[in-house]
């Protein structure tokens, strides 16, 4: 149900959805980058990395503009700080995608151990769950514009996807450490750090969904 007044707040809310679209697009590019690295298409991977960096910067600009608008006088009675917090968590998702992408960025080809790991089913599931967690967050934020019950019905989906990503992460790390004989230690460290950084995508999406839960609890009185 739409009500005709509250134009500024509606515009900001639509801005938050737009910001989240940019962030989701950055995560999508990150996902494509990992797929390209697994397929040993270095040039494609470099292109996707640039996309991640560009979209992260775009998300940063959007975040800054929206935060300023909220601070300058949108109403959001009782939940203004939570709206700012939500924007911060959304921005953290893009930051994690950028940091993870940079960790796995290489001048030449990836080490064969790393490529093998990227080709595993557990890794594919891990990346897919990162992306799905952000998509679920998009659905959740969109549901906030519909009704309380709609939003509540979606609030735990992000958490479930984050838990699935955690399980995938454990499996990938187990595989990474299961046979390290003759493996370059730098590769092991690089891949371990990459896993933890990439996992922050879903973690931050879950943090954002927690803020949405607070918004529901406080916003609906």
């Amino acid at each position, binding site marked *: *149900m*739409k*009500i005709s*007044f*509250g134009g500024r*707040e*509606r515009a900001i*809310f639509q801005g938050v959805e737009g910001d989240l679209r940019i962030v989701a697009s950055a995560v999508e590019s990150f996902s494509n980058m990992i797929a390209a690295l697994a397929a040993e298409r270095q040039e494609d991977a470099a292109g996707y990395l640039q996309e991640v960096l560009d979209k992260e910067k775009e998300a940063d600009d959007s975040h800054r503009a929206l935060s300023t608008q909220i601070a300058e*006088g949108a*109403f*959001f*009675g*009782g*939940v*203004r700080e939570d709206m700012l917090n939500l924007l911060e968590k959304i921005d953290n998702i893009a930051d994690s995608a950028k940091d993870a992408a940079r960790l796995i960025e290489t001048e030449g080809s990836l080490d064969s151990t790393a490529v093998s790991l990227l080709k595993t089913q557990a890794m594919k599931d891990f990346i897919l769950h990162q992306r799905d967690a952000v998509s679920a967050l998009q659905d959740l934020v969109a549901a*906030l*514009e*519909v*009704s*309380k*019950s709609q*939003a509540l019905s979606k609030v735990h989906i992000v958490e479930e996807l984050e838990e699935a990503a955690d399980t995938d992460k454990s499996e990938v790390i187990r595989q990474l450490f299961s046979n390290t004989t003759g493996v370059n230690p730098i590769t092991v460290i690089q891949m371990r750090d990459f896993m933890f950084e990439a996992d922050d995508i879903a973690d931050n999406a879950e943090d954002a969904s927690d803020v949405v839960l607070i*918004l*529901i609890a*406080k*916003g*609906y*009185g």
Partner: protein
Amino acid sequence: MAESLLLLAAVLSFVFGWNNSSFLIGNVRGSGALSLRGALAVTVIGLLAGVLFEGQKMLRSLDGDLAAAVSAQGMAVTFVVSIAITVAMTFADLPASFSATMVGAFLGVALALGSRIYLGQTYLVVAFWFVAPLLSGLAAFLIHRSIRHAESRLGLVAVDSMNRWGTVLGSLATAYALGANNIGLILGSALNGSQASDFSVLALGLTLAALAGTLLLGRGGVSGTIGDRLLVLTPQGVISVFVSSALLVWLGTQLRVPVSISQCILGGMLGAALSQNVAVINRRLMIESIGSWVVVPALALVASYLLMAA
């Protein structure tokens, strides 16, 4: 003497605006629903509309309803005691039961002068003071439940819009109720039974005096007492409290009973808190506020009695 009474009425209106600033502009300003200019406009419109449309009902609420008419000197003492106690309460950062103070002071004067006290209306007034917070609490509980139920079907932005306009309308209703009941009471006491041909001008003057008190002195201290220090409520809770309190003060006006909105708001806040399962309540402040309802009018009665007898 008539001019002196009007001057005292203006001073009391100023103090009233100061003490009640949290109810007049604090809520709508604190929530960010309106700018200061907007909040003041809502206050002026509400107060003035209240005193013009329904203030006449309160003109004889003291002299005439509670006791036979008292002298202008007696009414001056009523004003002086009310002003002194309300100022003291305001400095103590407590919202004074301003109308209770006036009633207490007036009864002290009437007793000292040996005027006949009309017990029926006096009992009604005192009973209403104790029943109004309970009714306000019940009304706030029901209103809060209704708002939450209605808003649960809306999106968050629509809820936010409803809260914003609800806050503004709640403040308007509060100002209207206070204008009719409290400013009407002050004006009626200043007229002391005489007819005023320039009622609208006097009403405007007292409204502006109250506004000046709100604007010049009402930004800190007591302006945050109830809302900030007693307990934390959501915007829906605050709207429920203000609407229920305005409703009870308006009901008091229909019965020609001087009512303190701080009493209604305290009851309303507890009702809204129960509705949203708030567990953290500043008990000390609550006890202080409730205690002041009994102590303050009694103190005013004794003070004015002694002043008249001296």
